[in-house]
């Protein structure tokens, strides 16, 4: 069971606390890892819906706090406790004054290139992102890819979503969960590839 790869932001969190958290999510380590990733995906959405950023960092912070508490507090329902902590983080985050890094500024506030050059660059960047996404889609299992693309094609058309769920022999809820899980993976994979291409391009320019 040591092969489970969990992406975690265990800043300042010791291994025992983190293992304790996983154990409380599920006795089987693989299932615990799945539950962890699922909760993390939901937490990121939750923070975005509450205008609290960066979502990934806050999701990790939530897990850190819960893991530490589990060591010295009686908690019967870990997911419910986790959502309570997440809501506290939202409250705290609203009290803090907003901060922004220079690199976080929206493109509007960054130096502008001439219009024709910008559209050419934007077009290239868009094509590059598309290539990255296609590479990521190629890595998916065929069944996941079929379900995800069909869901995306019909998204927003509820009648078709129902028919689609029926054709896969699952409920609409299960279809949405599976499609959103794949989407989350694709988003991470596309960004990772895109950044890697950007870095190699930067190196090329420097050399």
């Amino acid at each position, binding site marked *: 069971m040591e092969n489970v790869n969990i992406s975690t932001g265990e800043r300042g969190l010791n291994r025992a606390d983190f293992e304790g958290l996983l154990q409380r999510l599920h006795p089987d380590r693989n299932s615990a890892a799945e539950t962890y990733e699922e909760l993390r995906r939901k937490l990121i959405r939750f923070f975005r819906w509450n205008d609290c950023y960066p979502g990934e960092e806050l999701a990790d912070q939530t897990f850190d706090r819960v893991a530490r508490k589990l060591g010295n507090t009686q908690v019967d329902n870990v997911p419910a406790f986790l959502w309570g902590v997440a809501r506290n983080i939202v409250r705290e985050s609203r009290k803090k004054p907003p901060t922004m890094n220079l690199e976080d500024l*929206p493109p509007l506030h960054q130096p502008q290139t001439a219009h024709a050059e910008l559209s050419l660059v934007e077009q290239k960047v868009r094509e590059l992102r598309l290539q990255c*996404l296609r590479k990521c889609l190629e890595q998916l299992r065929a069944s996941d890819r079929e379900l995800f693309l069909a869901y995306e094609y019909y998204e927003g058309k509820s009648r078709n979503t129902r028919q689609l769920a029926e054709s896969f022999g699952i409920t609409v*809820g299960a279809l949405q969960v599976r499609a959103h899980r794949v989407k989350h993976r694709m988003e991470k994979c596309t960004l990772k590839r895109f950044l890697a291409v950007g870095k190699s391009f930067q190196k090329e320019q420097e050399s």
Partner: protein
Amino acid sequence: MSSEGEQKQWMTRYLLGELSPEEHASFEDRYLADPDLFEQLAAAEDEMIHAYLQGECSASEKAVMEKRIAASPDWRQKIEFERTLMDHVSSVPAPGAVGAFSSASATGEIPRARRPLVTALRLAAVAVWLLVVLIGGMWLIITNLRLRQELAQVQAQKADLERRQREMQQQLANLSAKPPLAMAPFVLTSHLVRDSNQQKPLVVPPGVTSVPLQLSLDQGLDRFPIYAAALETADGTRLWQQSNLKSQPSANQQLMIAIELPAGFLKRGSYVLKLNGISSNHKPEEVAVYIFRVTRP
């Protein structure tokens, strides 16, 4: 909140931040307790983003979306991904369309009396097809010539743009040619042996180009001739690595490995630095993991 339409309205108002604090909290209670509702809300958010990208949302929705996009890189990343996904989905055939049409074409045998007519029609179809191919071929040749001319123009423009870019980069380099700031080495303690005490955050001041780190190595782990270090983000993305590192005793006889990280890799956030010992038969073995947080003033 009984009907589907009413629920949809609640979801839209929640996502647009139009609910009162009490309604907001109550709706959160509901979707946090109901996984199906959570996924419906996620689908509604994606739908809203699609509508925004296609210019189909209302003015108030557009204003909210633009405010969020301006306020957060998370949102910009999300929007960029949705746009890419829409580009891809619009470039592939509709799911199920191929199967639906292919089954309709196989409709059985042609009646015997109609066969000469069918043969004549087939010949006519072949003739039309040949004509289309001929015209198409000529059109392709003409288009090819025109495209070659356009390509030459674009290449010339590209060369000009590259030249201007080089000039601008040179100007930028001249402007920013200041001596880089140096910072004192930051000591990291292994996460594997550390107790619950937290690692202090690593503060990277502006203007620093490289960050010196001292990786503290515990007794017994200095048996390797060389070491390799790798820097990863909290989600496992590898950013940097270096091999052929050697341990050295510090002033207080603590074994240390010194490395220098390019400051450009270190944004605000958490990082994992993994240290492997490389044995004489070139076999790597994980000896220490350092987890630390970076802040930028």
